[in-house]
């Protein structure tokens, strides 16, 4: 279908205009408000003790969420891609669930499960392990929302790869861990990295669920996103903008990483046996 030049231009400018007004202008405004008092105030605002504590906490959460997701996600992806078993479709649906759950519902669910009046309240009341209002609560909330990423990025790669190389390795006498480490892992590394990048971005950016399960005490249990909200509510608007710019920079880095990884992923899988 070829459009007349006029129509083509109109449609093009409608699209560009929509994106510009909806995304570019507001984001640009925040950047401008953050940076116009000077880059010095920006750095000062993101290096207050509370901001550093928030950064530490957010990074610590990432440091736990990512390995857990890789540790459990890769075998899950293997099982989904390689095996047939009863209940496979239920497992598939369960993996997609976090996409359909509102962050507030995630927080509510965790409170109703692990809170002192919850289904597993005995953990806090009798074992003394504070999950809600404690660090584990934040971690559980972030894992909930990031479960699908690694699995969904690794599974199609495994599917496409097939088992030829793995079978060949087996016939050559390789043990399962050798096959996994030398053959499977290298061939899924770009998909895995993509999944990890998405996981990191989502964990750093999670707000609604963490707001409900964290104690939100500055310097102790406040993540970066919680601090942004705290600063805004206190009326420290510039501080909120500065921290938002920091988080936006992370988001942009994530997008750049996605573009690079996309290019790497679409290259045909290199023969790992060549090492």
């Amino acid at each position, binding site marked *: *279908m070829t459009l007349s030049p006029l*129509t*083509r231009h109109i*449609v093009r400018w409608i*699209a*560009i205009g*929509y*994106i510009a007004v*909806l*995304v570019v202008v*507001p*984001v640009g*405004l*925040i950047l401008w408000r953050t940076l116009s008092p000077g880059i010095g105030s920006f750095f000062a605002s993101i290096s207050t003790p509370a901001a550093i504590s928030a950064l530490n906490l957010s990074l610590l959460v990432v440091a736990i969420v990512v390995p857990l997701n890789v540790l*459990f996600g890769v075998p*899950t992806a293997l*099982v989904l891609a*390689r*095996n*047939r*078993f009863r*209940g496979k479709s239920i*497992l598939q649906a*369960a993996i997609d*669930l976090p*996409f*359909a*759950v*509102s*962050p*507030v*519902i*995630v927080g*509510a*669910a965790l409170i*109703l*499960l692990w809170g002192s*009046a919850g*289904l597993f309240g005995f953990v806090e009341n009798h074992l003394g392990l504070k999950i809600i209002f404690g660090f584990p609560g934040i971690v*559980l909330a972030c894992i*909930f929302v990031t*479960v699908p990423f690694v699995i969904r990025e690794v599974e199609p790669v495994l599917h496409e790869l097939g*088992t030829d190389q793995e079978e060949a390795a087996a016939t050559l006498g390789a043990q*399962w*861990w050798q096959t*996994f480490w030398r053959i499977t892992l290298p061939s899924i590394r770009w998909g895995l990295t993509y999944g990890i990048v998405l996981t990191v971005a989502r964990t750093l950016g999670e*707000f*609604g669920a963490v707001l*409900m399960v964290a104690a939100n005490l500055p310097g102790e249990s406040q993540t*970066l*996103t919680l601090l*942004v*909200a705290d600063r*805004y509510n206190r009326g420290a608007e510039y501080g909120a*903008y500065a921290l*938002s710019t920091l*988080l*936006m920079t992370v*988001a942009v880095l994530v997008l750049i990483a*996605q573009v690079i990884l996309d290019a790497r992923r679409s290259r045909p899988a290199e023969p790992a046996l060549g090492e």
Partner: protein
Amino acid sequence: MTAAVDEHGRRPGLIKPRYGSTSLRVGAATMWLSIIVLLPLAAILWQSAGGGWDAFWGAVTSPAALASFRVTLTIAAGVTVINTVFGLVVAWVLTRDEFPGKRLVDAVIDLPFALPTIVASLVMLALYGPGSPVGIQLQHTKWGVGIALLFVTLPFVVRSVQPVLLELDREVEEAAASLGANNYSIATRVILPALLPALLSGAGLAFSRAIGEFGSVVLIGGAVPGETEVSSQWIRTLIENDDQVGAAAISIVLLTISFAILVSLRTTGARVAKREEMAG
């Protein structure tokens, strides 16, 4: 390829366990998903039934709950329609048009997806709240909530339609054109039907996201009951007021809507795929 045979004369096949038995891995995967995802959701189900049917129904039909459903569903529906139309336009321009800076536009579309929701809320508030450089004040109005939701659901329809548009067989369009069809009928009879599954899928994902959205509307909306208070905010208020049954009940309603949409998307997707398969 000669089949390799092990010392027992068995041929290692696709289903043979390679890293431990299948059931062990399935068990581990199931346990992981259960603890992280299924158990918390089960807790919601259990708690919502905790007060019996009366408590559940009372919570779901309270004036505030009904008002929040009305606000949430209407704004989400409006936003979905707008982003479906514009999403289609944007996807079209990205696949069929060429202009300098196209790659940049393509990359920018994913930004709302990668941004933390609270940052999105601030971003919207900067332009459409008090202190707006263009004097538009949408805070505490449903337009403010709407524009925030437009922001966060932008990528869904675009990213859903783009790959399908790319793969669309131009031959059919050219054939139709050579038979004398004008642009309008080509669009409505050839292109749109082919895009319909992708459009519906993107719209469904956008709607599902919009009804559950919290972070991006919390600052600009202001939780005005009956105007801008969305159901996720009402759930949070109920949890803070220690009304666990109420919070669970409203959550069940929202979850049911989301799941219904996603399930119907999956089944229509499967049905369309099957139809296309049979059409050859």
